[in-house]
């Protein structure tokens, strides 16, 4: 069952994105900056992060798939700001709630929710065929909630969970300008993740709530990507990366197509 706040947030996100897309491309200005170009499109992203929830001694994965509509606003001097909104599927397999009266272990299908994102790329310096930019990105997923019946007990029971997470990244991007319409790049980013999962359990008149949190899990990623201008109007953006951690590697993948107005 989806909570009402999640629905309202989703509507607000859609309105925000609609407003961004509705800006007149050449004349509109945002915060005093002149918008020189506008593009809109669809993106698919997949992200996995191995985390240790507060209080746990074992790691588990947060794995998210996002499908978003994105608007990219181009400002002067190559500064691009992207805003996105869409749907998120987040998998919390392996997460356990051991402080509840009956311990629970999450092995359910991914939770559906919404997501909002913002991304900015600003060129800093150009060296021959290379350009070094600064990039920053934040994704917020929310509105994930579900109720499960608890079966096999002497009384009726249910568990209700809701969750949200936010990930922010910041780092340099080195682009190779030689190919013109195809722009390969390498990014090295510091990444921060915060997540919360509240689980409420009711078994007859026995009840409990446990909130699991990840407060500021830091990691870093190495990403290879390419921005390809297919036609004057259509561009494809793709990137894939790894997030190494002690004992393993997480991954990220993004693929999208943009239409320039």
């Amino acid at each position: 069952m989806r909570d009402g706040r999640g629905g309202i947030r989703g509507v607000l996100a859609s309105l925000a994105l609609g407003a961004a897309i509705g800006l007149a491309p050449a004349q509109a200005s945002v915060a005093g900056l002149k918008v020189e170009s506008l593009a809109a499109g669809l993106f698919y992203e997949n992200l996995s992060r191995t985390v240790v929830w507060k209080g746990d001694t074992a790691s588990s994965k947060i794995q998210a798939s996002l499908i978003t509509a994105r608007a990219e606003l181009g400002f002067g001097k190559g500064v691009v700001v992207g805003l996105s909104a869409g749907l998120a599927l987040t998998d919390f397999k392996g997460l356990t709630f051991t402080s509840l009266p009956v311990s629970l272990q999450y092995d359910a299908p991914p939770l559906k929710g919404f997501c909002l994102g913002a991304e900015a790329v600003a060129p800093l310096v150009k060296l021959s065929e290379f350009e070094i930019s600064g990039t920053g990105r934040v994704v917020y997923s929310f509105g994930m909630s579900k109720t499960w019946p608890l079966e096999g007990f002497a009384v009726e029971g249910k568990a209700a969970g809701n969750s949200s997470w936010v990930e922010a990244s910041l780092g340099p991007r080195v682009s190779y300008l030689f190919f013109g319409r195809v722009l390969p790049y390498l990014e090295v980013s510091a990444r921060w993740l915060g997540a919360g999962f509240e689980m409420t359990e009711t078994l007859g008149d026995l009840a409990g709530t446990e909130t699991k949190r990840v407060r500021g899990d830091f990691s870093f990623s190495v990403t290879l990507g390419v921005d390809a201008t297919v036609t004057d109007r259509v561009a494809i953006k793709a990137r894939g990366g790894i997030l190494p951690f002690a004992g393993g590697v997480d991954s990220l993948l993004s693929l999208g197509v943009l239409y320039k107005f």
Partner: protein
Amino acid sequence: MTTPSGRIARAVTALLIVLCAGLGTSDGSLPRRQLKRAVGPSLRPPAGLRVERPRIRRRAPLYAPDRVLVRFRPDVDETYADGLLRSYGFPAVRRIPGIGVYSVRTAAGVSVTETLAMLRRNGDIELARPDYRARLADVPNDPYFLNYQYNLRNRGGILDISPDIQPQTTAGADIKATTAWDVTKGGAETIIAIVDTGVDRTHPELVSKLVSSGHDFANNDDDATDDVWHGTHVAGIAAADTNNAEGIAGVAWNCRILPVKVTDATGDGFYSWIIDGIIWAADHGADVINVSLGGNYPDPFLEDACKYAHDKGAVVVAAAGNDGIALVLYPAAYDAYVLAVAASDYNDEIADFSSFGPEVDVAAPGVWILAPAPQWYVGDGFLPYLFGSGTSMAAPHVAGLAALIKSVKPDLSVDDIMKLIRYTADDINKTAHPGRDDYAGYGRINMTRALAPYILK
């Protein structure tokens, strides 16, 4: 002018340099930290930068990541089923003979969840399940565990008590202890008070488990030595020294015992001694108080003692009584403060001697339970153990479970622990009395359901 291939080579070199520089700075940890450790403690990073992380171990997946198990509806032909599974493009399909189940390897890049969703949409398929990971349950090495302690793990077969007592037992008619021990074996900080006839303080199964010499309210001294046998037996069921390659296993392996003697040498006691014993136990750190005795008459002072212990954070567990009549003994009958325990047997049937009434909360095995006994009682030439029956033997199973719950969930209230024990029980007599009833209460306790995580699917 450089050639395009030369430019690409230059670009790749440059990217590698950037990559190496990035790794060296953004992680900011491994190489530098190792170097600083090597050159001495004076170069340790400032305390403010230190990050303490919990010890991380990978949680093993619950099921095989590339395999599922499938069963077709009975009317589906085997050849058709084989062909259908192969038409999905699974790289390997194997039929497990006898039960008509297929072990199917998932296609590359397709998860178990996706494969199951796809298979479950097919009307010919009756059941599609993950191939769950199994592991050895924690089985103690105590020699009598395997063949005699049906109460903890009942594998079925004959319970060979003596040449003339050899009942047939039913597999699974037990309290599901072994899989619960995978979750916890209890902590030494959790104390079970045995308010009874005292405890044999020299018994090898108990000598290392006692918090102290306890207190004797019959003789008013600090020596709660058992001069019957009953308290020793009860203490051993709850928390005998386990996995010590000797004797039996207790329910709460690592929890400790506080002996409290409230009867005289004949095994009789007065309410005042029991009241004193319960209060003394609560004041001396008992997390669980087992009272495998009781009287026929209600008494407000006895009830007050139970309330006192309850309010102090102790779970009070008591035997329902062995008269087989509709009268639950006191203090077991004090429903708000005490868990009243009936006795079940090796077939998950309620023992005919077990008293009943609306106050009964749960049942636990209480027929032919093997547990320690004082050597002087069994006599020379016999091992210091005996088979005992009664709700007195049932109650310490529940006390042991309460102690295990306390060990892993110290923040749960006494009332919540009591509810958890009730609501996770197996309704063993649901055919005759579905739901809670006066004979088994909510049912025979199930340690695994009370302690192991419920898996949300």
